[in-house]
């Protein structure tokens, strides 16, 4: 029972992190796409900025993944 509880706790960070990260990435990509449709001539610059923004969001999700992996590694069922 305790092991299952610990396993649930260890997957919590990545669940929360991935959910919020996905929502914010949706926002980033939608805004970038709107910008690109409005001004196709700056598509390249917008795409670069979008990738950097997504990478910054993704970094936090990856931190969650690493924390989840560390927690999962310490759980013994």
């Amino acid at each position, binding site marked *: 029972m305790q092991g299952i509880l610990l396993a649930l706790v260890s997957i919590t960070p990545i669940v929360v992190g991935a959910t919020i990260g996905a929502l914010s990435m949706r926002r980033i990509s939608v805004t970038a796409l709107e910008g690109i449709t409005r001004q196709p001539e700056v598509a390249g610059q917008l795409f670069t900025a979008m*990738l950097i923004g997504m990478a910054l969001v993704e970094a936090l999700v*990856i931190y969650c993944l690493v924390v989840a992996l560390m927690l999962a590694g310490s759980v013994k069922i």
Partner: protein
Amino acid sequence: MEEHATSAIETYMPYIVVFNFALVGVVLVVLGKLAVRGGLSEEPGPRQNLLEFLLDFFVGKAEEIRGCDCVKTVVPLLATLFAMIFISNLLGVIPIPVINQPPTAYYSGPLALALCAIFGTLYVSGVFNGVFGALKHLFWPNPLQLITEVSDVMSLSLRLYGNIAGEHMVALLIMGVAPIGIPLVIHFLGLIPAFVQPLVFVLLTTSFIAGAIKHEEHKEEREVVAEAQEERTKVDVEAQTA
């Protein structure tokens, strides 16, 4: 038997990472030698055209760093990082037992690459701001800049590691459930981060370099803008008096 094999691979993992990195380096050197074999010409053939197209991307990125003539210093760093990470990621899809462990999927590999990128940034900053300027950038306007460098290393390396290792873990998990057919799709999807991650790595390195260099330039830009405004007001005043 199978368990024994995986444990052997895990035991020798550090050596495998080093070996695969060296392999990637050798492949890149050989490819580079082959690519420029026979010399470069004024009227490029298809091979030289392709290479110039690839190099042009990094030159464009380096030219986006305004206020310095640093293309020749920055482009080799960016292009090497990109090629190294990209080929390392692609090792994962080669179906040969030892070679198919991408060195970027073990934390020591990305950490080494991120350290290279940050020390390269410091080097470029030292070349263009002087050694004193580069050291001053670490402590001025606030000493927390030093922590920024450390967290840059962490974010660069963890991002690369998490993406590549995560993709591998997912492939492994799915392999346990559906061993035929589906892993191919997962591997194909894995090609997307394999290309996007080096791109992001290079873009972030570029922005770090731009942040390290720009400093002094901002002041000059502001002065130039202020001078232009003064001239404009002068012209306006003259026009009004006339």
